[in-house]
């Protein structure tokens, strides 16, 4: 069944695209996250307690879930656009009456769906190792949604900007990956020296993971409202950039 309006069809197509290669786009990231949990959890479980009472494995689960959400949301929009640009199949969308808002909703929407699907998968598998609390479930959903939207939008911008896979890999490996890893996925930034705590506060990814983790434990390094404001504000800024690039046809219309 095909959706009846243009942007919903593009959303459906983008979702179907990653679902058709689900082993690669959903299964593989879940396995990776579980491996992280097994290795780090095994090494550090008996040595580290976070927030005073939380076991390291339980602490790690929300971080890994959010990291998977962020990385896969980014991968979805960026890989779809760069692939279709290079293979030429983007022309099928370029020739349609879809507006730039339609493009934005569809590409970011499908990234959110993939990010949340992978995140849910990681969570379901990892709770066999430790069950975190659910202190504020609405915050869990809010930060997962916002984080996926933010990275889906960044992926859209990267996909439009990159002209070859090498440029995309540079964006992914030298920007997204370090910012994700250094955002507090594997540790609480409260354990860092003051200087590095200050540096971490300049990383917008930190607020996504910290706010998301607050939803589980009711404890965080920063107020969830501050995190929500920063992440929401950052998303609005990158969304404005993405919509503008789509409106002017940046690197997709000559």
């Amino acid at each position, binding site marked *: 069944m095909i959706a009846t*309006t243009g942007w919903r069809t593009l959303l459906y*197509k983008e979702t179907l695209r990653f679902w058709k290669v689900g082993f690669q786009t959903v299964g593989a990231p879940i396995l990776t996250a579980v491996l992280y949990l097994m290795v780090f959890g095994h090494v550090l479980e008996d040595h580290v307690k976070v927030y005073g009472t939380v076991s390291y494995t339980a602490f790690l689960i929300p971080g890994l879930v959010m990291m998977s959400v962020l990385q896969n949301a980014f991968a979805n929009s960026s890989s779809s656009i760069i692939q279709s640009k290079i293979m030429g199949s983007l*022309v099928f*969308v370029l020739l349609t*009456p879809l507006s730039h808002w339609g493009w934005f909703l569809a590409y970011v929407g499908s990234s959110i769906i993939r990010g949340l699907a992978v995140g849910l998968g990681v969570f379901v598998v990892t709770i066999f190792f430790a069950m975190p609390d659910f202190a504020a479930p609405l915050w869990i959903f809010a930060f997962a949604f916002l984080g996926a939207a933010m990275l889906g939008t960044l992926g859209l911008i990267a996909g439009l900007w990159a002209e070859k896979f090498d440029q995309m890999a540079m964006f992914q490996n030298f920007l997204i990956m370090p910012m994700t890893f250094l955002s507090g996925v594997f540790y609480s930034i409260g354990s860092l020296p003051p200087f590095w705590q200050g540096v971490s506060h300049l990383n917008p990814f930190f607020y996504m993971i910290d706010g998301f983790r607050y939803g589980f434990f009711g404890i965080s390094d920063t107020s969830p409202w501050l995190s929500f404001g920063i992440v929401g504000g950052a998303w609005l800024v990158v969304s404005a950039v993405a919509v503008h690039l789509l409106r002017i046809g940046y690197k997709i219309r000559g």
Partner: protein
Amino acid sequence: MPAISFQSVCKTYPATPQQRAQGKPGLRAVDDVSFQIEEGEFFGLLGPNGAGKTTLISMLAGLSRPTAGAVSVHGFDVQRDYAEARRHLGIVPQELVFDPFFNVRESLRIQSGYFGIKNNDAWIDELLHSLGLSDKANANLRQLSGGMKRRVLVAQALVHKPQVIVLDEPTAGVDVELRQTLWQFVAKLNKQGSTVLLTTHYLEEAEALCNRIAMLKQGRVIALDRTSELLKSAASNVLRFKTDADLPWEIAQHARITGRIVQLPAQNAHEVEQLLGALRQAGVAVEDVEMRKADLEDVFIDLMAGEQTPLEVAR
């Protein structure tokens, strides 16, 4: 209201940094092009590689923006009213592109959906049948041959029943069967009222199908007329023969040479005698001599040789 209108359209690609460093200007791919295509016409856009045909079509499709001028489809400006313009337009791109994630039917359903069309299976089935794709409906596009992929491109362009169909070299590198199937189907759509804009390097196809033709050279329209009028403008007859010898330069410069076959314009018996006499004098042995009527390719070669004044006859 014309189906397609180009008004004083220019397209200049800016110089690359290397070209700028060498003091070279950007490339003017389309230079002040104006013409209209009326509803129901089968219109040919001809020209050598790099003449600006695909650039014109890209601007029509909204894939690139004119540097100056305006392009419209059924009165809708392709920049300002892009959504309406694109609803009226179905474009078969020149490159053989496909989305490897989907099968043929999925691709066509998705393309319908982009245009807000639901429950389009009856038309999709008709397209599949007409283009000989019925047994490939559930095949992934990766599994199809080049010719089959080309058919799918045609189906994708027609899936929203556009009033204007643009075919950018649709038969490049495809077999005779597809050509026959494609032209029968497109001619049928044209008879039913669709406007067709065709670019092709197969001039016999253009001559057979197009009511009117524009010829482009270096981004400018150098001829625009009814096909029959263009044919009249050329030498009415052509002398054709085979030879293994090199032709004298003064004859060779007017000749169309394909391997051993030489074709020369000749209006009447007197010119034929003169040509054969000159060849005999130059010691050129000829065989299989025959006369034929001039065709569009002769007109094209004459015009591209740049010896004729550009025609600006809009009919």
